């Protein structure tokens, strides 16, 4: 029996909810229905395995893993914002240039004008929000297509970054600022060769996720809502939790969990909460699904679009700061090509180009896929031109899957 294509002619008399639950308990059927979600997790594991093999074990070395996280944190941070923009039915091509521009701004403020890093950071984040507000208002109120506005933005901020830096690289940053990107969480229990705090933290998070998942499952079962077969749930939780602990262990073997990872984790939790449990988050999904209907529900769609872009601007600014802190300089070339990584991450993670569909965890997994690819290709010494081409191919594959799914339904 097909799922969504041709629904039963009349669910009115016999649309029995328990019947639906009974049906979905079939393992194969459930897998088929949620292939996308499991597929992403499998893809991540597969790509990690592939590069682990190709680099002869270098990928998973604690040092490399730490670098991987540090070098690609910008993708995760911006993917969180881009997901909301894509769900709202738009796109933002300017994020790379904004990243570079804010990095340049931070450098000028902190290095040339000697500002303290706290006000400088705040000003930069504010600036990012302002940029998002300007672009967002053109999209929301003047109804100019987002890809035009942000394409223009991409060029404007590229030029402004160049102007701000007067074509040079500016640095180094004050050491306190560098901690953002290159610092690690303090270790409370010292054990030889292992930052125990980090490991314990990782284990704690894994446990919390498992418990949370269990509670959610119990809740759904109580209400008779369709839910995944028990075996699959256990498998997924164990695999995910296991990966988390292993990951923490690897990081703990080097210098522990980086600060930026904590920042990322907090943001992920925040955005997952916002998109699944808050009114503002669900309103964005409604708007992406059917703007007219959303308007009729009293949802202020223009304002929501504006908020999505402001959010994107702030996150792009944060990513720019993280990136600049990592390199310890601001260069005119910063931010080049970031938007592709971020957009690809969202699509790999299951966002739909037409809006209304996409999960935060999916975008995060997609971002990690891009990160692993970046890192793996660098280790293998693949030239940047080839990297561009390969990334294009990966985006192509991700979108093909999206199109295939849409055509199937």
């Amino acid at each position: 029996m097909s799922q969504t294509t041709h629904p039963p002619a009349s669910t009115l008399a016999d649309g029995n909810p328990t019947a639906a639950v009974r049906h979905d308990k079939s393992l194969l059927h459930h897998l088929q229905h949620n292939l996308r979600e499991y597929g992403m997790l499998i893809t991540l594991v597969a790509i990690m395995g592939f590069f682990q093999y190709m680099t002869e074990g270098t990928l998973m070395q604690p040092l490399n893993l730490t670098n991987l996280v540090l070098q690609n944190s910008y993708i995760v941070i911006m993917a969180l914002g881009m997901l909301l923009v894509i769900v709202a039915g738009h796109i933002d091509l300017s994020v790379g240039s904004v990243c570079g521009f804010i990095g340049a701004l931070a450098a000028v403020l902190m290095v040339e004008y000697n500002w303290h890093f706290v006000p400088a950071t705040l000003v930069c984040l504010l600036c990012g929000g302002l940029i998002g507000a300007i672009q967002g208002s053109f999209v929301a109120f003047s109804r100019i297509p987002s890809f035009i506005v942000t394409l223009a933005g991409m060029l404007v901020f590229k030029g402004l970054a160049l102007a701000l830096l007067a074509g040079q690289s500016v640095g180094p940053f004050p050491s306190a600022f560098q901690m953002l990107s290159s610092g690690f969480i303090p270790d409370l229990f010292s054990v030889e060769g292992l930052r125990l705090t980090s490991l314990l933290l990782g284990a704690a998070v894994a446990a919390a996720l498992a418990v949370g998942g269990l509670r959610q499952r119990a809740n759904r079962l109580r209400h008779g809502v369709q839910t995944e077969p028990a075996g699959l749930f256990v498998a997924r939780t164990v695999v995910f939790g296991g990966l988390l602990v292993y990951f923490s262990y690897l990081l703990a073997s080097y210098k522990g969990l980086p600060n930026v990872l904590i920042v990322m984790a907090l943001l992920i939790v925040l955005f997952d909460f916002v998109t699944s449990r808050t009114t503002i988050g669900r309103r964005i999904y409604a708007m992406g699904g059917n703007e007219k209907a959303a308007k009729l529900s009293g949802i202020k769609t223009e304002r929501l679009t504006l908020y999505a872009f402001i959010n994107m601007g702030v996150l792009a600014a944060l990513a720019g700061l993280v990136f600049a802190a990592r390199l310890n300089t601001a260069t005119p070339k910063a931010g080049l090509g970031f938007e592709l990584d971020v957009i690809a991450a969202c699509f790999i993670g299951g966002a739909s180009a037409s809006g209304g569909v996409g999960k935060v965890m999916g975008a995060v997994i997609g971002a990690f896929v891009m990160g692993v690819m970046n890192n793996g290709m660098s280790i293998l010494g693949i030239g940047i031109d080839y990297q561009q081409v390969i990334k294009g191919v990966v985006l192509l594959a991700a979108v093909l899957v999206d199109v295939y799914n849409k055509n199937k339904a």
Partner: protein
Amino acid sequence: MSERSPSLLVALLRHRLAWPLITLALLLIVNTVFNSSFLHIEWRDGHLYGSLIDILNRAAPLVLVSLGMTLVIATRGIDISVGAMVAIAAAVAAWLIGGSVSGTESRFPLPVAILGAIGVALLCGLWNGVLVAKVGMQPIIATLILMVAGRGIAQLITDGQIITIYYTPYFFMGGGYLAGLPFSLFVVAVVFAVLYLAITRTALGLFIQAVGINPTAARVAGVQAGRLIVAAYVFCGVCAGIAGLLISSNVKSADGNNAGQLLELDAILAVTLGGTALTGGRFSLVGSVIGALIIQTLTYAIYSLGVPPEINLVVKAVVVFIVMLLQSPEFRAQVGALARRPGAGALQ
């Protein structure tokens, strides 16, 4: 009941090309104000010479790409990879000609180089068209792929270098003169003529508009939308290829990274300035030509004002943005609402 027939001025203003022409005229005036010799044309070195001629020559690649972009936009699509295609075409031509410094040697004959470049660009357009029409991807995403991968491809062809071209016959395309006018103008004229004839003397215009306005209804009526859409992207690719030849011929080099930078935005803006809606459907070739001229004249104005190159991008984007805003009905409504006095309600 009889209506007073609208005055001629009002009728003229309602014409689709009115605003683009007015904008162009204003820009020409601005340029003349800042540069008194702007409109001056003289005959020198066996050809016409002057700022206007310069603008026309430099505008040629943009006009070409805008023509291709018009068709794509009319089918409800968009192609942001035109810059990359320009770079690829230039790279292919440069590679086929080779870097021999003699100026008279070419690895392959010139016609082969030209056809090769255009052929590769055609394939790129075909790639885009297939992704959009046969696979069903959204155009912005499909062409985003080539936009990024394409620059990488261009760099691979040129081995990461900027290839300088020394072969003198090659320079004629972008820098030569025929009957006193830049040769590039003739190239543009030929392409425009071909396109115009195709649109008006065949069913192409009708079909493209039908597909852009209502693709489902067009399909039921027997129109082969898939082929049309692919054809539009292929044509866009060919235009980008020819533009690539003109550009690299003008600057005597092929730069995989920088050739065709900004071109996609310029082309999209030219098309919208010329009156074609981004939502597809009805389009205007002449409008796109005027739009391209507007962009070029604007660039010229910015340069002659002495604005540093970094700010150039910003100023241009801002100015064009303002014009687009003025054309946007929503914006006009908002401004109108602000201007209207409160209390002038419609009901008693």
